[in-house]
């Protein structure tokens, strides 16, 4: 008996007006699995991530997490979102709260953890992302790499079952990319289930179990990293990879 996947995406379509950003996507993510989502800009990678924690509502199809279909807006949805951590390209830290407060805010106000406990856990998480000394700094006082690491810690503080990363390193200066990827690799080693939209092919190859290639709103190829990078099957994947190599 195979265990049910943590995430099941079935025949999902998403239209913005007359434009279809997702045109029938199927995707399973097993517990503890790390999936890299790659593809050209505009292929629908962000939209898929956003549909999985219902920042966007899907037009048709179904998405279940841990066997539960995504609920309508309201308390149940808020509970479910709290199980799915999301890390954004633009960090989206709350600028009027310190690094520590950014992390402990949702545990205190959503999970109703007592403040001393939430602060203690926030300090542990800061240590885990290597930022113990930045607890009292505001986001504007942190580098991009540091902000993104705080954002990862903020998402982890809700004890999510699944982490979604939408191009977490695309807004970073090159010298800061590895500090964020290191934190993500560590998280992957600890067994977190992850869906990572990325252009960092090294990370996709070494830290992920599977690569899904999206094109024009569909997953057109998925395979183990080694197979995908070394022997891509579809012409579109070949084309995509050759363009990456020439950069």
């Amino acid at each position, binding site marked *: 008996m195979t265990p049910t996947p943590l995430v099941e995406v079935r025949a999902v379509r998403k239209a913005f007006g007359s434009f279809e950003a997702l045109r029938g996507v199927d995707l399973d993510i097993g517990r503890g699995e790390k999936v890299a989502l790659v593809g050209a800009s505009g292929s629908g990678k962000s939209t898929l991530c956003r549909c999985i924690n219902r*920042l966007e509502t899907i037009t048709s199809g179904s998405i279940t997490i841990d066997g539960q279909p995504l609920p309508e807006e309201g308390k149940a949805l808020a509970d479910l979102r709290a199980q*799915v951590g999301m890390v*954004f390209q633009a960090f*989206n830290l709350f*600028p009027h709260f310190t690094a520590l407060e950014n992390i402990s805010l949702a545990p205190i106000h959503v999970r109703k953890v007592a403040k001393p406990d939430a602060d203690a856990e926030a300090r542990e998480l800061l240590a885990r992302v290597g930022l113990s000394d930045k607890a009292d700094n505001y986001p504007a006082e942190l580098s991009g790499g540091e902000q993104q690491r705080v954002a990862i810690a903020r998402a982890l503080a809700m004890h999510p079952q699944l982490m979604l990363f939408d191009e977490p390193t695309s807004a970073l200066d090159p010298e800061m990319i590895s500090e964020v990827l290191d934190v993500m690799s560590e998280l992957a080693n600890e067994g977190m289930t992850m869906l990572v939209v990325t252009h960092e092919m090294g990370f996709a190859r070494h830290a992920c179990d599977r690569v899904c290639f999206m094109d024009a709103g569909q997953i057109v190829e998925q395979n183990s990293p080694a197979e995908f990078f070394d022997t891509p099957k579809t012409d579109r994947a070949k084309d995509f990879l050759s363009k990456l190599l020439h950069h």
Partner: protein
Amino acid sequence: MDQIWQMLGENSSFLLNGVLTTVGLTILGFGGALVIGTIVAVFRVSPITPLRVVGTAYVEFFRNVPLLTLLILIVFGLPDIGLLFPLFWCGVLGLVLAGSAFICETVRSGINTISVGQSEAARALGMSFGTQLRLIILPQAFRTMVQPLVNNFIGILIGSSLASAVGVSDITNVTQQLNIRYAEAVVLFLLSGAVYLVFALGAGGVGSWLERLVSRSRIGSAR
């Protein structure tokens, strides 16, 4: 010249009461309008359609009816339906209703300056709409609203002079009464004008001070 000083001396407590009434109308009117205006702004950005409709109707009505009309309706209309308020509070009510429609729009545009990324991050953490507003959106929005709120404050201050027309003894009303008695229009209206000017400049000063405080803090600009 002596007559003028004599007039001011004899009526000093009358004038002082007028000044205090203007100050009271303005501060209570602004405070009430800030609270109601923020609530209506929350209605207008809420995901619940009936609340948005109510919010929009409120703003369109109270922003587009002259304050004087509103004051007359309150003073002469409310007693007809059995609501009898002291004149001063009728003035405050009119200022709150009209002021809140303008402050609502200030708050709403303040909310709109906060990037959607902020509310998406809050939603992704499982925060409800109310929690998002209270913890994430409004505290950042108010930081961008200092100068527009000063403008709203001055609008309410100057609008408060219309309360004189329905019999509230504010500084405009008091100077009008003295003018009828002493026929010193220029002096008296320079005096009341000076009261508004000083008060408005004071509000502007407080606003600039708040704005410096905000920009000097370690919190970066809202992104």
